Structure formats: C-alpha cells, structure tokens
C-alpha cells in the first residue's frame, strides 16, 4: 500500500520531530542539573510546626505532610539549642504515627476476654471507679489513687491529668524520671534551691573545663553533641568520666574509667585535694556555704591512694585530674543520669556539687552544673492548688506505692507509661495485678495490657497541639499535624472528660490546649510573658520564667552575680541535718561490696542506646529496629577469655534474681569485669532486633533515699549450649 504525504504535511512532521528532538536534548540538560521536578509522591502538601515527645532536648521540627500523613521531618534550623539537628528516635515518630500496629479503640477486660467499648463508655467507667473509691474511703482515698508519668503528650495534658487526680481526691503522682534519674534534681533542690541545671548548655563554650560525669551525651541526647563540638572548637578541655568508651569519648581530650558506682569517691577525693592544696576558694566558701568543717571531716579519708583503691584508677591519673580541675578558672560539670541510678547516688551528687562549690564553680559564666533530668519550668503546683484547692496530703514515691499495691491498698491507677521501667519488673507486675482498676493510656499491644483493666488509646504528639518544655527551661509549642485514627484522643481530652464527670462544677472549662495554656498563663505570674503568639512564632520557644513579654531572657547561670544560692538563706549547706554526713558506700549487691555474692563477680550496668526511648514506643519502630541486632552484652575481651566466651556467642546474663538471653559483644571499650547491656528492649516488640526479656526483670527492688538502683549489681555470664 502506498502512503501519500503532501509536502506541507511532511514539513509539519519534520518541524515537529526536530522540535521534539531539541526538547528531548534540553530534557537531558534538566535532569543533569540534578533538580528534576519533585516526584508527585514526594512533594509535601504542607508543613506543620511540632516537636519531639521524647527526651529533654525537645527538638523542634517542621512535619512534612502529604495525603493526611506525616512523611518526613525537617529540623528547625532556627532552634538555637539544636541547630536543626535531630536523632533517629525523633524521626521514628513518622513511622509510629502511621503504624498499623496501633490499638485505636478502647478495650475493657472482661471474664471472656477483651471487649471493645466506646470512648464515652470508657470515660463513664473511669469516672464511676473514681467516684466509687471516694465514696468508699472518704479522705483516705488520697493514697488509694495514683498516676504514672510521662504522658508522652504535652504540658496541657499533664495539667489536665493532675487536675483530674486532685479533684478525685488523689495525691500520688509518679513524675517522669521519678524512679530512676531524679536524685540529681532532688539534691539540687535541697542544697542549691533549684531542681534544674544551674546554667544553660550554651555556657559550656565559656568554660575552661567541662567534666562529663557519666554523661554519655552523644548516645542519649545526640543533638546536644553539637555543644560538645562547639566547646571543643572553642578550646574547652572536655574530660569524661565513664567506665565505657562511647561515642561521647570522641569529643573529649581525656577519659577516666572508674569502677561503676565510684564516681562519688572520685569527687570526694577532689574536694579533699582542693582543700589540702589550697585551691579551695575560702572567701567564696565563707560567703555562700555552711557546714564546711563537716565537709572537711567527711572527705578526710579520701586521699589519692584510697580513691585509687576504690575506683580502680591509678593515683597518677587521679592526681592529674585533680590538678586540672584545681587550675581551671571556670568549670562546668555535666551530670549523667547514670549517677542517679545507684543506691548511694545522692552521696555522689552531693560530692560533685561540693567539688564545684569549693572552687567557686557554681555561679557565673562558664560555671555550674548541667543535668538532662531537669528543665521543668515551675508553676505547675501553684496552678493546680489555685484551680483545684490544696492537696489533701503528700504523695509517696514508687517504692511506697509498690508496697501499697501489694497490700491491695490502691483502687485506681492511671498507668501512662511502662511498668517495666521499674526494677523488679516481675514483682511490679504482680503488684499491679492487686490494684482495683488499672487504666492504661497506651499505643501498642505491650506487656502493660497484662495488668490493665481498661485500655484507652492515646494519641501521638503530632495528632494534637500543645506546649512542652526542654532542658533549658524553654517552652515550645506544636500545632496539630494530622488527625488521630479511630477513637484515639489526646491526654488533655481524656483527663478533662473524666474530670468533668467527677467534678463538673470545679473542673476548669477549656476546649483546647490553647485555652488551658491561656488559663495557666493568666494564673501563674512567672508565665505571663510566655504568650501563645510568641511560642507559635518562635522556632525554639521562650525560656521560662518571663513575667512579661519584654522581660529579658534568662539563660546562663541561675544564681546572682554575688554567688548566692536560691535556698532560703542564700547558702549551700554542705551538711544539712536531713541528709547527714557524706558517707560513700558501694552499690547494693555489688561484687565490690560487703553484701557481694561470689557467684556473681561481674558488675552489671545498663543504659539507653541511641535507638531507644522507653519500652512502649521505640521498640515498635522498624526504622529503629533496622539499626539493632537484639540484646547484647558488652564485655572486655579479657573478661570474656576468662569465661570462655567468644565474639558473637550466645550467652545467659544472670543475676541472683533471674537471667536474660543475650549475644556477647567483645570490645576493649569497657572496663574489665563490667558488663553493659541496653535498657529498653521489650518482650512485646514486633521486631526480633528489639525483642528481649526486659533487663529490669532480673534486678532487685533496691533503692536509696530518692531513686531505685539499676546499675552496679553483681552478675555473671554463661555460654548458652
């Protein structure tokens, strides 16, 4: 068949073809620029301000949202504390929010198993239980109700929950970190008059020396590594005290590796050295402290030889450490949470505070104490008392609450976080089964369901708006990013709805976190200048306190220039009567202590790793599990050789209270005779890489006056056959 093409048609076709070829060539150029148009499946539709719900760094970010889902996060580069950096834990929120494993409807335990009920029915049931407990016990109900934090949400949710508990007549609140890391906060409060860091992190670049006392910043708070990096670049001498070499070691000029639980000995020896060598600032001590004579007696025995015998360090490196500190004009000590995790942690913290005080290193630029376990702005108690009336008594800590639960003396418990964060996990589980009614606010099918009567699903932080605070006492705001699935509701809504049922006339009226925030701001004078408008406009929030909008921002040292403390008399008492003398003793059950068991000659320590934050959340993220390979125990090759254990072999980690399976990881980065294992693996994890018997299941219920003991217990390792 012959095809007829006219000259005009042919020329048209020719022009079209040549144009197409040219366009094709320009297309190659376009792609070669590496800026091809955004694929439709990647372009976000909108960006919403939010923050990470996990650690106290409180990273702020812009959530990138497409098709009603968060697809990625972009750190706020204008956040002066983080510089826009983030860590994997924060980014796991993208996956957790969208997880198909979430439980999205309330569940009630019945004789025939779990029954799905409506949110309204769940609220009614909780209100009935609270009302019935109050009717039965009258004022005695105060000790029969309890609530565990954190709530993983926002300040307004915490306030709503506290108001509900107060109006129900209860007083027992287990605050965040109360059981494991609150010793530092407690000692700061008692001795210095503040429960928080005495300065802000940006001051470390103004220090001559920074001592990281058990503070593994790079692993537990990665975004704050930028401050170590800045300090290093500024010529600050960064010293690290930790029995393990970690990622943090890379930022430090020197590391001391004392035996676990002996940090207090090192600090007591420092105080003695400063006094004996004349480095002590006698004028400052006379002006701002009391009890110096008692302190001098308390440290008298801690010469370098004794410190060496207890810490395992050499006298030479101890004296070198002391000389460096004595010569430093400005020193900041950054306290790790691990210091609070030994029985005797309060002694350690007291000794370190004294070490800073005698050299006049508590007040002023480039001086002070940092802890990641504080940061909470004040005003909460003031507000609750104002709105709900005074508390009908004092609350107890978890140790006493546990005893009450075992005696069937707790009627309603709001379990907002994992019970596996407490030592003696099995004992705690059994005690929880004695509680009349356990309401669990959670996300996933975890072990908490075993002890729960009513599960009411919570929202992840991007599913509701609200404020929060960080380690620098900065208050930040987040907007709602996405809708929550099913009947998941934020804590402020759940506790408000319960509160309205039990005290309709007294529970404050608010329909949003904004309204509650405003009520709080109007009530508490130190918050007046922290307006919603300022919070919403700022990439890193507003630092508390701010009595007015034009009040100068208070960062840096908390103490006035004359060095007075914030205590009632303006002084730091080295020897308050309520604490007694500073007497150091080994951790309970330590292989180095008088109560040692020869069958368990190794020292067990645990800690967070970079992919973990609490047991109920991060274990449910594949994005974090991909970086993990299950429970391991880190031990020195010399220790392993003595036990006949090879690299990567399967072992049983045993204490006198139980055992867990683990894989042996051998490295010279840990002190011989010490075994480290990560804290937060859980048995309910859907991923084998993060699934394990909780480590706290094999720890005893040991406490000091403030915190529980998680580290320092004797253990052993056995090859699995």
């Amino acid at each position: 068949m012959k095809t007829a093409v006219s000259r005009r048609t042919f020329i048209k076709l020719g022009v079209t073809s040549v144009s197409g070829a040219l366009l094709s060539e320009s297309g190659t150029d376009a792609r070669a620029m590496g800026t091809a148009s955004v694929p439709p499946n990647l372009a976000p539709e909108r960006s919403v301000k939010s923050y990470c719900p996990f650690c106290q760094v409180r990273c702020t970010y812009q959530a990138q949202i497409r098709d009603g889902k968060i697809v990625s996060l972009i750190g706020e580069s204008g956040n002066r504390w983080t510089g826009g950096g983030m860590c994997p834990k924060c980014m796991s929120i993208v996956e957790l929010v969208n997880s198909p494993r979430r439980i999205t409807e309330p569940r009630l335990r019945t004789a025939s198993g779990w029954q799905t009920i409506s949110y309204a029915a769940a609220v009614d049931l909780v209100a009935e239980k609270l009302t019935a407990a109050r009717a039965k016990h009258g004022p005695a109900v105060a000790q029969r109700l309890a609530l565990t934090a954190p709530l993983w949400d926002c300040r307004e949710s915490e306030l709503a929950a506290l108001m509900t508990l107060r109006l129900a007549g209860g007083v027992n609140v287990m605050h965040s970190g109360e059981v494991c890391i609150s010793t530092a906060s407690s000692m700061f409060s008692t001795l210095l008059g503040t429960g928080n860091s005495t300065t802000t992190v940006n001051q470390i670049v103004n220090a001559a020396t920074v001592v990281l006392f058990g503070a593994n910043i790079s692993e537990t708070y990665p975004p704050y590594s930028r401050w170590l990096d800045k300090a290093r670049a500024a010529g600050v001498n960064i010293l690290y005290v930790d029995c393990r070499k970690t990622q943090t070691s890379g930022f430090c000029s020197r590391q001391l590796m004392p035996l676990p639980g002996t940090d207090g000995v090192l600090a007591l020896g420092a105080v003695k050295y400063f006094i004996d060598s004349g480095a002590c600032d006698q004028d400052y001590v006379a002006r701002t402290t009391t009890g110096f004579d008692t302190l001098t007696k308390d440290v008298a025995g801690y010469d370098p030889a004794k410190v060496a015998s207890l810490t395992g360090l050499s006298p030479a490196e101890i004296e070198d450490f002391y000389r460096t500190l004595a010569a430093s004009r400005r020193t900041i000590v950054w306290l790790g949470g691990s210091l609070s995790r030994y029985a005797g942690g309060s002694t350690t913290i007291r000794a370190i505070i004294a070490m800073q005080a005698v050299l006049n290193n508590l007040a002023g630029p480039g001086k002070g104490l940092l802890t990641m376990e504080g940061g909470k702005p004040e005003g909460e108690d003031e507000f609750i008392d104002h709105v709900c009336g005074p508390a009908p008594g004092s609350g107890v800590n978890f140790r006493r609450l546990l005893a009450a639960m075992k005696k069937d003396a707790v009627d309603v418990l709001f379990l907002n976080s994992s019970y596996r964060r407490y030592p003696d996990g099995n004992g705690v589980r059994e005690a929880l089964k004695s509680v009349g009614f356990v309401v669990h606010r959670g996300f996933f099918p975890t072990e908490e369901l075993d002890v729960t009567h009513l599960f009411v699903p919570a929202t992840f932080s991007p599913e509701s708006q609200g404020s929060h605070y960080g380690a620098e006492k900065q208050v930040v705001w987040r907007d709602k990013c996405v809708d929550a699935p099913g009947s998941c509701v934020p804590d402020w809504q759940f506790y408000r709805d319960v509160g309205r049922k039990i005290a309709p006339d007294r529970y404050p009226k608010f329909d949003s976190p904004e309204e509650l925030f405003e009520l709080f701001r109007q009530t508490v004078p130190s918050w007046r200048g922290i307006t919603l408008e300022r919070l919403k406009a700022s990439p890193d929030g507003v630092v508390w306190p701010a009595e007015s909008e034009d009040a100068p921002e208070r960062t840096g040292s908390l103490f006035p220039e004359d060095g007075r403390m914030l205590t009632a008399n303006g002084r730091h008492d080295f020897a308050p009567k309520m604490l007694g003398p500073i007497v150091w003793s080994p951790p309970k059950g330590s292989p180095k202590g008088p109560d040692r068991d020869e069958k368990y000659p190794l020292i067990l320590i645990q800690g967070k790793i970079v992919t973990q934050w609490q047991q109920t959340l991060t274990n449910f993220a594949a994005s974090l599990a991909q970086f993990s390979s299950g429970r391991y125990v880190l031990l020195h090759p010399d220790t392993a050789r003595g036990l006949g254990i090879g690299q990567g072999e399967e072992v049983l980690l045993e204490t006198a209270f139980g055992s867990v399976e683990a894989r042996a990881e051998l490295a010279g980065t840990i002190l011989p005779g010490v075994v480290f294992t990560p804290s937060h693996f859980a048995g309910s994890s859907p991923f084998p890489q993060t699934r394990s018997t909780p480590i706290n299941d094999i720890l005893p219920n040991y406490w000091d006056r403030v915190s529980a003991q998680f580290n320092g217990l004797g253990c052993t390792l056995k090859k699995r056959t």
Partner: protein
Amino acid sequence: MARYVMAVDTSRCMNCRACILACQQRNGLRYGYYRNWVRRTPDAGSPSGFAFQPGSCMQCENPPCVAACPTLATYKGKDGVVRVDKERCIGCGSCVSVCPYGARYRDPVLGVADKCDYCAPSRALGLEPACVQACATRARIFGDADDPNDPVAKILAVRKVTRVEPPEHSPKPTQVYLGETKPTDWPRTTALAAPLAMMHVVAGAVRWLGALSLFGVVGVFLKELVLPSGSGPRDPDKTA
C-alpha cells in the same frame, strides 16, 4: 552550572545514624535499604575505640556504574551528580555489582537501581540534602564547589582532603573527607560479571540496530523531501 560536592568531617560523626533515617524518610525508601551509611571500624587509636566514617555515593568523576549500565539509565550530570533514570533502568544490577563502594542497591519492589542523588527532588524545593540537614554536628558539608562563597568551597580551600578510593583503577570520587579518615582501603574495583558484560554487548547491538533503523528513517525523510510520495502523475479519478 553548579558542581555539587559533599565533604565529610569524620571527627564530628558520633554514629547516631540520623543521616541514614533522614535520607530514607525524605526519599521514601524502605527501611532496611540505604542510600548512605556510617562505617564503624574498631580503632584502638580513637578515643571512642571506633572510627566512624559517614558516606554515600561518591559521585565519581569516572563512575564505573555509568560505564556498566547497558541502557544508559545511569548517567553523570553536568552538576557532577550521578543519577538513575528509572524509566530506562531494566534492573539488571550491573551498576550495583561494579560500584567499588556498594553505594547502590536494587529496589526489591520497583526492580530498579537506587542510589544517592544528593536529594535532588527536595533540593529543587530549596532544602539541603536530608543527611546534611539532620546532622547535629554538621559532619556532612554540601554545596557548590565552584562558588567561592559556598561553605563547601570555603572549607575545601583550607582543609586537606582525603579520598577513599580503590588501590587500582580509581573512579576518582568527588565526595571527600576533611583531614584524616579511617579506613581508606576498603573500596574494591570489581569487574562486571560475564553474563552482565554480555548484556552490555547485546544492548550495544540493539542500539546499533536502532541507529540503523534511524538511518533508514532519515533516508526516507530525505527521499520524501526531494521526491514526495504524492508528486507523481495525479490520479485522474481523484482530481474531479
């Protein structure tokens, strides 16, 4: 045109792996598949006992992946970035097997090669590459090496750089390390496996046949230009 380069300061890396997860989420990758990495190597001389070395596609000047690609799906742009045209990629894996750095993988669902392109789609929106943006210590520095005001150009002007490259037949990586980095001896030159090399020959033949066809089309084009099909004596029946 910009010449994009990434410079990595390993002394600032703490192996938090934020860069890896940020890359996966920004680019919609599946967890367990990576466009970038942090190598963790025991190093007794390092304070932490380990050397951490972040990396990703080295955007080589002479990329073996480009040479190995039978369909020309992998190409090096004028901006220095090696990219994959996923429409052209047939998922043969040639590029994956010859990369000395293991910087590529085959997407298990899409069946095509995937690699770092310095977050090209989101850079078009004005964002930094995800790994750069998420890094708390700014261990990865990215920008236009030809712009003297760009941070990467400034730092390259004053810092010694180290290239991590195979001992033989270096593809000349453009991603560099500032100062020292460990280890430097891990990339390996890999020859293309025989079946994949054969595919290269077959693809060449197909392209040759394609060129021949094009030659025929051009011939017809010229013929029609000089003597159009309709230029002969008109059909009297159709001229009425």
